[in-house]
Every structure is written in C-alpha cells, then in structure tokens.
C-alpha cells in the first residue's frame, strides 16, 4: 500500500484525450473532467447512498420552465467559485454554453439546435428553446454542460480550446494539478470550492494499459480503483484480500447493429432469423459468467418506459430457420465489425458467427480500430456490428430517439440505419411532450414496432462491476455516469 | 656446425575437407643453416606456404592437422614451446613477410604505430629511441622521407613501398631467420628488383638466414644459395641453386626449366609438361610426378626417397637410382 492515507489512486487503461468539456465525448475523459467542473443540476443520491435518475440543483438553486416548456429560467446559488477564486455567476454560465455551441463539437449535440442562453441577471440564466425538448433538464447534468471559467477566453484565440484540453478551469471539487502524459494525472481539491471540503487530499489517475497489470497493482494495494477489468479478472479478484468487486445495476446495454440498409439484412425476415438464432443465455452464461440479463427491447430494465409486451426473441433455431425460409434464404457474405474497445465484443462476435453459421449465413469478422469501426458505422459500410450504449441522461429518449430516428443514421445514433416513418412520427411526438404517461404510451407503441422489425439484436444489459480496495468509501454509482467517480464525496477509511 | 636455424623432419599436414582430407604436405624434410638463403620453389599448390606457415605456427588452429614430423627452430622443438614462447620468437628471432603487401598491414593504423609496436614488443627501445630505430630501418629500405612515412596509412603508399616497410619491420629485431613467402609476386619487375636487392643486401648484412618461397625459377636462381624443389607436397630435389637449376636431376625440375620461354626458340613449340598436378585428396601412392613424367616406368609406383645425386645435391627419383645403381 502507498502509506499515504489521503491519496486515492485510480488505474485507467488509457490517457484522456482532451479535458475540454466542450470537446470530449468520451467516458474515458469524463473520469477526469467530471469532478473538475460543476453543472447547473446534478443527479440525486438516495438516502441509502444509491445514485438516482432524478436531478437536484448543483449550481442552480432553483429553476422554472414555461408552460410550453420552451423557456427555462435558472437561479444560481451563491458561494460557488472557480479554482482561481472567481465566482460562478450567470455570465459564466452564459459564456460556457455559448462557447459549447460556438465550438459546435460533439457535446453540443445534446442540446437542441437554436437554443439561446442569456444571463438575465447577475445570478439568473434563461434558456430559450425553439421547441419543447422533453429531456432538457437532464441534459444539463451531462459532462458537456460543465461550467467553464470565462477566463479561458484569454488563453488563445480558439476559445481556449488548446489550453483547456490539458488544463482545468472549473468550479468542481477538484482541480487538475499535474498531467504526465501517458503516466498519470493528479487532481487536488479546489480551494475555492463552494461545497463541502472533500476528504481526499489528492487523487492520482494512473494510466496502466495492461489489464493484468492493473489487476496486479490493485491486488498489491498500489491502486484503489481499477477500471475496465475483463470479466474473468473480476471473478479472479473477488477472492483477493482487501479487494472488493462491487456490482451495480446499470443501464449499459450491449447490442448488435443490423444494417437495415444492406442486403440481406434489409430483409426483415433475415433480421428476425438472426435475432432468433442467437443464444442469448449461452452468451450471458458463457461470456459474462452469468452477470447480466437479456434485454427486452431497446429500453433497459430500470429506465422508465420499457414495454414488457414487446417481442423478446429467444434462441430458437427452428423458428430462425423458418424466418430465413420466409426471406428466401440469404447467400451474401455479411460483414461483422467489432473492435477491441470492449474485450467482450470479440467472443460475442465469434459466438454470433458460429450461431449464424448454423443458419447457413456466411459471416465475415472484421476486427477494426475503434475509430475505423465508427467511421464505417457512419458510412453504413457494414452488415453487423457490436455496440455498447449507456445513457448520458435519464430519459428513454437516449434509447429511442437516438436509435431509431431516421435523421440520426450512422454515428449520430441510429446505427442500424433503420427507417420507419411511423416510428419517426412517434419519436417526434414523444420529444415535444412533457407528459410522462403520454410519452410512455408513445414509446411503448414504438417498442412493439421496432422489436418486431428486429432493427437491432438486443443482447444483454450488464451490471456495472468495479474492483476497488475495501478501504474506499462513499462511492456512488450513477448509471448515467459510467466511469465517473464522485471523488468529492468519497473517502479512505484510515 | 651450429644448429640449423630451421629444421623440418618428415612433416605431414592435412586439411580435413568435403571430399576427404587434403594431404597438403606429404613428408617434407628441410633445413636452413645459419646465414644461408634457401629457396623453396614449386608450382602453385605444392605446399610451399603451408610448410612455412606450419613451421612458424601461423596456420589457423582447427583447420589443419599435423599428422607427422618435427619442426625445430634455433634448435628448439616447436611442439614443446608454449604460446608465449612462440610469440616471443615470432617477430624477434624469426620474422616472416608475405605475398600481398596490399593487405599485410593494418589498414587503420599508421605505419609508425605498426612499426613501433613490433620494436617495443621485442626490444627495450621505447619512445623516441624506438622511433629512431623505425626511421633507421626505413632509411635502410631506401625510403627517404621516412619520418613523414611513419605518419601515413598503408593505403596512401604504393605496393613496393609497403613491401619495403614490411621488410624493414621484419628486420626490426635482427631476426636469425626470415621467411619470405613470395614477397615480390604481386609487384612489377622494376619494383621487384629493388625489393629483392634490398632484402638480399639486408640479409647478408645482418647474417640472417632466409627461407625464400617463390615459383619463379629465375628469381630463385639469382637470390638463393640453395634450393628445394617441391611437387605435390613433397620435396623432389634439393641442392645448391646453380647445381639444381643448371643440372637438374629430377625430371620435374628439368621439365620446368625447359618450359620457360626465356631461352626458347620463337619458331619452335615450348616444351610443356602434359597434364595437371595430382589431386591431393588421394595423393598418388608412388611418385607424385609419375603421371606427367616422360620417363615414368614400373618402379615409379612406389615412392622414391631423396637420395644424393651429387655433393649436397639430392633428388627423389627412381631414374637416378637406376642410373647410379
């Protein structure tokens, strides 16, 4: 062990890319950025320390929305300050959102186009939307909504992007004090932080590429939290002294994209055949060691709006063959993309290939660099591909509007290149409605359509499992915040 | 009479090879007396070099096998000497120079460095004294700007110059025996003459014995007191140079001399020796020259030994035996 009780060490597989909240779209970066910044609202924590899907004010003390849901007014709490001592005021919020939208990078996409942000007082900000946007409040809790110190504007003529990519300018509990690239990052408490003073005096994020090495370091007590360990390592770790493998129900799903635009997958019966040819339980038992459940349609368990009546496929070779016969067979070679981003993908790919070969389908596996794979999603040059999805905010919107909207083909979310006018209509209706019951009904209908049309293969929903030293206390997992730690609320027992 | 500076008795050397062992030396007896200049002549491959190199222990270890014979230098049996003693001997009492002056010097060291190394290794001279000695040696070799030459690298000098330097080095420690293996073969005639002359004069002047290897009968005849004629790893004739070359007693020696174009009549064909030298993997049982010999007869199937055919003149041929018998 390190002997330094006030130091918490997190082991990650790879270095963050950029620390600018207006730039990064990667959970791997968010581990570091999220605690550096504050947002208007934050996810709530239950009495017994569980992460909730509802939000409470963080910078905002209070807010209200117009009846039609297009004008949102936030009052800022006083006493929050950036690490350089400057107070967090309405101007800072206005600056941050304008900067986000002006840069126009990935994170800006979470907010509806045409959104206007204005400081309507020293401590009051008003958001004006062109049309209602149901999940709006929740989007404000996501990483991209972090409030940035307007002082960064002076750090270069690029809205301080280059500077911010390697430095922090937030009002979060911690600030970045060191970054040895490829080795480690150091976070230390923000002396001007408005909330309760964090207990941990120093947080070090060590970059350790090799999973085996991360595990050994954790076992040796050199790190407290080891991220992204493969299932097999976690199982082995469970019995190690001083290490605890924590399980949290999560909203992270793993599914297969079936390219609805490409033969033979453009035939709905082929897709149905495929959906019935996958041995879901076999994958969960074999590859996940039982740590997961089969999905029931696109919306995961634990998120409101799931329709239990929608079709759930199960491994049934006979009906799969029947469906394929209906389709008239399929002779084309089907490409199957995956990358090493998730170690589970390869076994899934191999297993799926084997399952589909029982149907006589000819699947060609292509393991790509993650970036290349995403490129192919975007251009639609693929047959099947693996994917993981976790929601950035707590709304079924994350699983429906992204996945099925024909305007979001490709990387934007609809990676099956699925198009259905009826579904588009349902999606549009659901997004502008602020009535949860109505939305549930709309989404329910949608789920029946898309599962029947087998747009994706809904594999499984997997628990979030993390290995930590047993002296780490106060960790709250929030399913919207995968790979993100609430360092400010955590502590180390003696 | 003093001990011979070099005495070789019944030497046999073979090289293991693919097709079988190459019997390079097949029983050579040879001696060099103090102050004497002895020539070793024969066709290529007749084992002139191997004989000399074996005597000085310069053949690469492992590549060859000495299957018989003794070698003694200055009265001491080489086989009983340690490597240290051999090293002391080489470059001191015994020196050797080789055929290719182009490559015989270390290409990356100056002449001075290489000369001083030998002088300091085998004498008490150091520093300036050693340098003076080097300059003196070079001057003896008719190298005028000796001081400047010491700072030069071998590649900057001509072949003749290099060979003279090597001779100078060989005489650095007043050797009692100098083995010169075709020292002028690679040189032009004018240079050859200069080098031979200097070598001859220096040997006479210091009283060193010389074992002079060449395949050029003319050079041998002018340079040596006594010669050995070799053929296929054996000595076939030996004796005073004038006697052997003027009155050869072995058909091989005779045929060699006749084959020289020097005195030939341009109108008539040259007297050539038919055939080629025997394969040394299976050296002939009897006389090695048998197959090419005009006079070959039944007796040649057994091996002739060197026998006296005149005073100090020996030949290994059954013909002489018959004549004398």
């Amino acid at each position, binding site marked *: 062990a390190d002997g330094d009780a006030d130091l918490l060490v997190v082991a990650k597989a790879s270095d963050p890319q950029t620390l600018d909240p207006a730039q990064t779209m990667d959970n791997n970066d968010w581990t570091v950025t999220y605690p550096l910044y504050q947002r208007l609202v934050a996810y709530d924590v239950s009495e017994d320390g569980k992460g909730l899907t509802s939000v409470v004010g963080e910078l905002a003390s209070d807010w209200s929305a117009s009846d039609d849901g297009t004008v949102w007014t936030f009052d800022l709490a006083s006493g929050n300050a950036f690490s350089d001592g400057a107070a967090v005021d309405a101007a800072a919020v206005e600056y941050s959102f304008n900067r986000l939208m002006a840069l126009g990078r990935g994170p800006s996409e979470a907010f509806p186009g045409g959104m206007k942000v204005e400081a309507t007082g020293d401590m009051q900000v008003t958001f004006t939307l062109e049309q209602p946007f149901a999940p709006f409040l929740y989007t404000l809790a996501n990483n991209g909504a972090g409030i940035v110190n307007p002082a960064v504007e002076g750090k270069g003529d690029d809205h301080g992007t280059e500077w911010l990519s390697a430095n922090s300018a937030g009002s979060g509990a911690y600030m970045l004090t060191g970054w040895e690239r490829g080795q480690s990052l150091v976070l230390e408490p923000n002396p001007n932080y408005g909330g309760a003073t964090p207990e941990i005096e120093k947080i070090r994020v060590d970059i350790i590429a090799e999973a085996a090495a991360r595990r050994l370091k954790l076992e040796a007590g050199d790190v407290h939290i080891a991220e992204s360990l493969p299932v097999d390592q976690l199982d*082995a770790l469970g019995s190690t002294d001083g290490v605890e493998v924590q399980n949290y129900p999560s909203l992270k799903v793993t599914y297969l994209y079936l390219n609805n635009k490409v033969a033979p997958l453009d035939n709905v019966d082929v897709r149905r055949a495929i959906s019935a040819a996958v041995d879901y339980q076999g994958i969960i038992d074999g590859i996940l060691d039982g740590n997961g459940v089969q999905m029931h349609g696109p919306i995961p368990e634990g998120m409101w709006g799931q329709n239990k009546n929608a079709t759930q496929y199960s491994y049934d070779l006979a009906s799969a063959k029947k469906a394929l016969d209906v389709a008239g067979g399929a002779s084309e070679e089907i490409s199957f993309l995956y990358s090493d981003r998730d170690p589970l993908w390869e076994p899934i790919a191999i297993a799926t290939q084997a399952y589909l070969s029982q149907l006589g389908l000819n699947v060609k596996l292509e393991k790509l660099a993650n970036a290349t794979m995403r490129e192919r999603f975007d251009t639609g040059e693929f047959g099947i591909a693996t994917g993981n999805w976790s929601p950035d905010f707590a709304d079924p919107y994350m699983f429906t509007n992204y996945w099925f909207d024909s305007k979001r083909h490709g990387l934007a979310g609809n990676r099956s290149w699925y198009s259905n006018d009826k579904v588009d209509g349902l999606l549009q209706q659901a997004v502008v409605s602020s009535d949860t019951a109505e939305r549930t009904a709309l989404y329910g209908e949608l789920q029946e359509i898309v599962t029947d049309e087998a747009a994706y293969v809904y594999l499984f929903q997997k628990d979030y499992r993390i290995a930590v030293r047993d002296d780490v206390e106060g960790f709250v997992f929030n399913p919207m915040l995968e790979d993100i730690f609430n360092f400010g609320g955590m502590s180390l027992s003696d | 009479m003093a001990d011979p500076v070099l005495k070789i008795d019944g030497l046999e050397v073979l090289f293991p090879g693919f097709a079988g062992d190459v019997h390079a030396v097949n029983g050579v007896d040879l001696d060099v007396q103090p102050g004497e200049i002895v020539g070793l002549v024969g066709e290529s491959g007749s084992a002139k070099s191997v004989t000399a190199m074996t005597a000085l222990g310069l053949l690469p270890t492992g590549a060859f096998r000495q299957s018989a014979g003794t070698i003694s230098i200055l009265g001491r049996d080489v086989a009983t000497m340690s490597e240290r003693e051999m090293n002391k001997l080489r470059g001191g009492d015994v020196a050797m120079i080789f055929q290719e002056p182009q490559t015989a010097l270390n290409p990356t060291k100056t002449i001075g460095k290489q000369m001083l190394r030998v002088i300091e290794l085998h004498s008490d001279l150091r520093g300036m004294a050693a340098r003076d000695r080097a300059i003196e040696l070079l001057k003896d070799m008719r190298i005028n700007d000796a001081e400047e030459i010491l700072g030069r690298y071998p590649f900057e000098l001509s072949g003749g110059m290099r060979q003279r330097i090597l001779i100078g080095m060989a005489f650095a420690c007043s050797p009692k025996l100098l083995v010169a293996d075709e020292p002028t073969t690679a040189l032009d005639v004018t240079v050859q003459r200069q080098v031979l002359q200097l070598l001859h004069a220096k040997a006479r002047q210091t009283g060193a014995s010389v074992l002079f290897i060449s395949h050029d009968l003319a050079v041998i005849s002018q340079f040596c007191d006594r010669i050995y004629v070799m053929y296929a790893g054996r000595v076939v004739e030996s004796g005073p140079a004038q006697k052997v070359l003027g009155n050869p007693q072995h058909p091989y020696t005779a045929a060699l001399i006749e084959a020289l174009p020097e005195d030939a009549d341009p109108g008539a064909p040259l007297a050539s020796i038919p055939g080629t030298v025997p394969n040394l*993997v299976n050296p002939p049982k009897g006389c090695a020259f048998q197959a090419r010999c005009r006079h070959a007869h039944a007796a040649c199937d057994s091996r002739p030994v060197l026998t006296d055919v005149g005073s100090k003149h020996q030949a290994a041929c059954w013909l002489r035996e018959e004549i004398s018998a």
Partner: protein
Amino acid sequence: MSDATVSVNPIKRALSRVDWGYLWYQIKKSPLTLGGGAVVLTVLFLVIFAPVFATHDPNAIDLRARLAAPSWDHFFGTDEVGRDLYSRILYGGRQSVAVGFFVVLVAGFIGTFVGAFAGLIGRRVDVVIMRLMDVVLSVPSLVLIMALAAALGPSLINAAIAIALVRIPVYVRISRGQTLLIREMSFVTAAETFKASKLHILRWHILPNILSPVMVQATLDLGSTILLASALSFIGLGAQQPTAEWGAMVATGRNYILDQWWYSAFPGFAILITATAFNLLGDGIRDILDPKQKAR
C-alpha cells in the same frame, strides 16, 4: 589454380549451382543449421498436415468450456470461447508460414528484378531507384506497415502485402549490390565484347549469380516475416477471427496471462521456435554460401 585447389574450394562449389551433396556435408558439420533445418521441416510437416494432427475443429466454439487448462482433452487448453488451442496453433502455423513465403516470394521477385535492373542500367535510373528505396527505408517500417495495413483494411493478406512492400528495398539493395559486383567480373565484360544485349546479360549472367545471396536473405526473412506478421496480428492488423493466427492468439491471450498463462505462452513459443528455426537455417546457409567467410 590446380585441380587440387579447385576440388576443395567451398565458395566456388557452392556458387556454381546447388550442389546438394556439398550442401549436406556443410550442414552436417554445423549442428545448429541441422537443428534449425529439422525444426523447419517438422513445422512445415505439422502445419501442412494440420487436419491430421489436430484433435478438434479449430473453430468449434464451446462457451461452456472457456479458458480450460491443458488436459488430455485439450493439450494446450482452450481459449475464451472454448476453442481447442492445440488445434488452433497447428492451423495457425499455416497462416504464419504462408505469410512468410508470400512476402519472401513477392518482395524477393520484385526486389531482385528492380535491383538487378538498377545495377545493370546504372546512371540516372539507378540513382532514382536507389534514392527512392533509401526514402522508403528511412520511413519507420513498422509504422509504414501499420498505416498500409490500416489503409488496405485489416486482414492477413493485406498485412502480408504491406510487409512485402516494405521488404522490397532490402532485396533491391542486395541484388543491386551483387549486380554491381558481377558487372565488374570479366565474364560480363566479355559478354559486352560479344555485343550481348542488356537483356542477355541480365538473363544469363546477373540473375543466375545473384540468386544465392537473395536466397540466403529470403531464408532469413522467412523468420523475421513470421515475427512481423504476428506482431501485426498482435496489434490487430493481421489475421481476422475466427482464423487462427499465432500473433493474434498471443494478443488475446495477454488478457488472461495471470490466470491462464498457457493461452499466450503456447502460441508465443510457436512463433519463437519457428522463427528461430528459420533463422538458424538461414544463418547456416549464409555461412556456407557467403563468399566473404572463406574457409581457412
């Protein structure tokens, strides 16, 4: 220059044409070459007859028998989807060996011709070709290969093409160097006096005489190509699943190295042994053929 000298001169013997008896004699003298050759033959044998020696279908998955330890059922254990590692290693050798031969043949052929051409024509052509090769050589080869493989799309054949492209300059250099040497030999001068065309000289004099050094390089390259191909597979730019390939197996196996050491150990050993064997053999042949290392 007598018969006696001729019959034992190893260089000329070996250079003349393949003299199997002589080659065998030299190889026998060197236990390492012999050992390398024996292993190479064994590997080739095992790999060619993989279906005979394999105990399982190399691609048959069994999710319920994942990561099994070596046993009588699975000599080298199973992988993360329950495939038999022993059978996969046998089949995997086919990829490695095939890539090796492919690269060496392609790069060898192209490189030899280009080099001989450059050396023979000389002047501008030579300068241009050689400068181009120098530039290619000064680009970090692994990066070039990785980039090429990425551009062509990850697959073993693309990796092999990329490696071959990068190896061409090596052969160009060798064959050009050798051509320059041969061009100076008087039999080429003689051919020039016969008014022989460049093509004639290339066909009859240059190519036959540059073959030995090229062959030596090729044997050595087999070893390094196998290594390189597996390195590419290791970083995911080589063979694609479910095809068995050694480098890819080590790559996946590294995730399990702590608990299932055999997963990466066996394919790693396979690479090591095969590459070593090819290198030993190549080394030995070079020692025999290299005119510089005269037998003394």
